[in-house]
């Protein structure tokens, strides 16, 4: 099967699946399975008709009306998938500028950081019986510093992603990304004397890198997936 036919079959599937309100994982399952089905159906029709265009048209007829299928697929989406859909929407949005995406991700990660910090303080209070007493300026700096680093990291990864998608390789970009992150963190910390506080620096660096690694990984998968399906012209 040539690439054009494969794309036509994908478009057939995508017309039904794209409007379904469901998480990325759920829609991926639908797409993969429906594509396998139409590919088999197309194979049948090619054997029977011997003409690619006629086989495509007959496959579409067999597949049914995409709008009707969308409605049926929507009904089959389990209620628990709503949570996954909300997470997907928090992390990735179609047609959003890279800067807006970076801000959204940075705010999200900062919220996670603050929640984590709050939980740690609460745990300390419960276990030790009193609130921890960090130096206030240091805490403020860590909150602001973390957000700056997250914004920087998210901007960079948002900016890098389109190039990854074109090449379908990103390991060098990730290495470059981490090198730049470490350099940026050092540049931000050293002038304020925070690099001298080894534990604090390592703590923040670990959080920064784990968060960014997770985000990079998910972004890369998402971008590849986005390129494969969501850029198809279905109208």
């Amino acid at each position: 099967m040539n690439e054009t036919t494969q794309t036509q079959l994908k478009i057939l599937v995508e017309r039904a699946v794209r409007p379904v309100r469901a998480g990325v994982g759920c829609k991926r399952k639908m797409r993969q399975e429906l594509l396998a089905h139409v590919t088999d159906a197309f194979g049948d029709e090619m054997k029977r008709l011997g003409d690619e265009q006629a086989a495509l048209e007959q496959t579409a007829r067999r597949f049914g009306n995409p709008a009707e299928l969308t409605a049926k697929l929507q009904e089959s989406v389990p209620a628990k998938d709503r949570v996954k859909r909300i997470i997907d929407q928090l992390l990735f949005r179609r047609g959003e500028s890279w800067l807006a995406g970076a801000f959204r991700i940075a705010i999200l990660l900062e919220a996670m950081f603050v929640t984590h910090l709050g939980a740690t303080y609460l745990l300390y209070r419960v276990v030790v019986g009193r609130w921890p007493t960090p130096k206030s300026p240091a805490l403020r700096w860590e909150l602001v510093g973390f957000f700056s680093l997250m914004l920087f990291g998210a901007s960079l990864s948002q900016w890098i992603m389109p190039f990854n998608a074109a090449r379908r390789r990103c390991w060098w970009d990730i290495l470059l990304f981490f090198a730049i992150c470490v350099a940026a963190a050092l540049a931000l910390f050293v002038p304020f004397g925070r690099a001298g506080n080894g534990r604090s620096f390592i703590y923040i660096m670990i959080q920064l890198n784990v968060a960014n690694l997770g985000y990079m990984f998910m972004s890369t998968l998402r971008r590849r997936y986005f390129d494969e399906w969501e850029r198809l012209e279905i109208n």
Partner: protein
Amino acid sequence: MATIHGDALRGHLEALILSALRRGDAHGFEILHRLEEAGSGALKLKEGSLYPALYRLEAGGMVKGEWEGNETGRRGARRRIYKLTVKGRRRLETARGEFQQFVSVVGGILGTIS
């Protein structure tokens, strides 16, 4: 023989799928073939509509789906093999009983009227 289209099967498709899976594990395309074969060509489904029914059955624990290895090398396309569960077998038996009762009652009424 007159063709039976998908709309006439509303409410019965899930039981038909369970019945097709009694013959053994199968992916969607194979299930469709089994149904068409069993219907002697008189059954015409809009093929896409099979999958929402399969997803509902899977969510209900009546079938269990597993991805097939991607030996075909078709990028982005993957078959899912469905297997009847114990719950699915029980549901099939219940559906058979319900359908027999339906045929008996509705058939009796139609027979009386005609």
